């Protein structure tokens, strides 16, 4: 919250929806990475396809020890910084892919998974699943081949930039195309962990976890889950205080 408030731009609402999903993954008992050696060949990979969620990625990787938090706060969204407005691939910092338009990163992740033995996770937005290129990935296990080390994580917060999003029969369509589909509550630690444990235990199918989340969860309760806050940082100290108060009440 402070990072985005100080930067005066960035996607706080999307990042807040992913807190438990992201932390539940990197602190799980199976996830393997080495913040001192980002290029470690056998590391598990996290591709971020919905690139506007990069603030949570930047904060988590700082926490994991890839780089000092001070560097992030000093240079976020500045020219030539390692922390661009959308992620730029930088293995030393634990960033597997540079973002592009929506519907692209998930294909890159699938391609990487086809050649790797380690696990490849890819985070997409529910709005991103409207892209024909994203929907096309549903057919990849059938048209190409299933990828037992690939886990697609859908952030289903129900809101895109300008409208609400209904993922419709995504779960049914996924199953029909050969995916193992898991649906879980993306803000309940146990539910998140159970979903990941189930996903990694299945090795003969491509996996998709649809996490039900709330956009802006744990921030200003007046804004959480409502349209109109996409990419809008807290505008002043009072608004920031409302976000922090919301966060503190979540903790209780």
């Amino acid at each position, binding site marked *: 919250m402070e990072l985005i408030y100080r930067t005066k731009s960035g996607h706080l609402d999307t990042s807040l929806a992913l807190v438990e999903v992201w932390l539940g993954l990197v602190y799980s008992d199976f996830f393997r990475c080495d913040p001192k050696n980002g290029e470690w060949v056998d590391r598990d990979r996290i591709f971020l396809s919905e690139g506007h969620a990069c603030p949570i990625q930047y904060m988590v990787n700082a926490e994991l020890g890839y780089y000092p938090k001070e560097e992030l706060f000093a240079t976020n969204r500045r020219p030539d910084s390692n922390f661009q407005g959308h992620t730029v691939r930088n293995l030393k910092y634990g960033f597997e892919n*540079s973002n*592009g338009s929506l519907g*692209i990163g998930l294909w*890159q992740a699938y*391609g990487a998974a086809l*050649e*790797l033995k380690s696990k490849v996770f890819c985070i997409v937005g529910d709005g991103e699943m409207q892209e024909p*290129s994203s929907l*096309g990935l549903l057919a990849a296990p059938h048209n190409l081949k299933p990828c037992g080390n690939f886990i697609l994580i859908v952030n289903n917060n129900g809101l895109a930039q300008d409208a609400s999003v209904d993922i419709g029969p995504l779960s049914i369509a996924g199953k029909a195309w050969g995916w193992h589909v898991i649906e879980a509550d993306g803000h309940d630690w146990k539910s998140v962990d159970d979903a990941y444990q189930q996903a990694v235990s299945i090795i003969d199918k491509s996996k998709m976890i649809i996490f039900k989340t709330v956009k802006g969860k744990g921030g200003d309760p007046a804004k959480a889950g409502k349209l109109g806050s996409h990419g809008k940082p807290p505008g002043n100290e009072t608004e920031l205080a409302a976000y922090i108060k919301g966060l503190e009440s979540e903790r209780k």
Partner: protein
Amino acid sequence: METFGSQSLREAFGEGLVDLGNRYDDLRVLDAGTKNSTMSEGFQQSFPSRFYTVGINEPGMIGIATGLAMTGKRVVACDMSIFLQHAHAHMLTAARQKKGLHLVIAASHTGVAVGPDGGSAHDVTDIARMRLIPDFKVISPWDPAHVKRILEVVMEEPGYYYIRLNRPKVPIFLKTPVSFEIGKAYRLKSGSQITIVASGDKVWTALQVAEELGEGIADVIGIASFEPFDRETIVASAARTGRVVTIEDHLSQGGLYEAVAGVLAEEYPTRMKKLAVPRQFTTSGEPDELARLYEIDKTALLETCKRFIG
């Protein structure tokens, strides 16, 4: 002028790929439903476990190719050029991954040389599109021997490469071993009256016209490397002749003409003429017939040069 038989650029590409497959175990090849058009099927037959039949899904193919390259593999993704338009954002995002990736995109069926399949199959804007993506090296080989040499060169260093192939058989006029350097233009004939700058298989057309014009008349500059572009060779030739004609099987917009004109406007303003596909939807016809119709053939070039010299 001596030739050594004929072959299409895509057939040379298919043979070249198999040679590379023998040399590089980490080479992966993908095709989006056109392997018997791009001729990548030869690679599949020789190395089935290293070939991906992606299906008719160009964005997916480029995305997967990028992902394979992210694991440290050498990757060649092939398709008929016009279909790659679907994948432009994916190609842009590929190059955005920055250094270290080794990704080659090869497009067959470029220009009106595609012929009877008609305008919807003629890709006459590919060079322009690929020049717009930072970090892509954009290469348009002249003949089959050139294709094979270029394939060897692009395997040497990681980077992003685009190679423009085409469909019909063309004469092999380069003697092996072929010398090729990325970023270099080649002066293939020297003359003092006029400069002809040509790319792709139009280099052969330019050489024939230069011969008909007679000894010492035309300076012929062959361009394979569009990005990076050899400014010095163009400027030096324009300074010698004072007249520059370009010929390409592509629109002038974003193509050879604008590349050359851009350099000369900055460094040595020179009168120019262009032979390029007009900005209109093209028609069906045999390749030779279409080259005549759009005035990018030998006759049109010869007449343009003669009128220009006066």
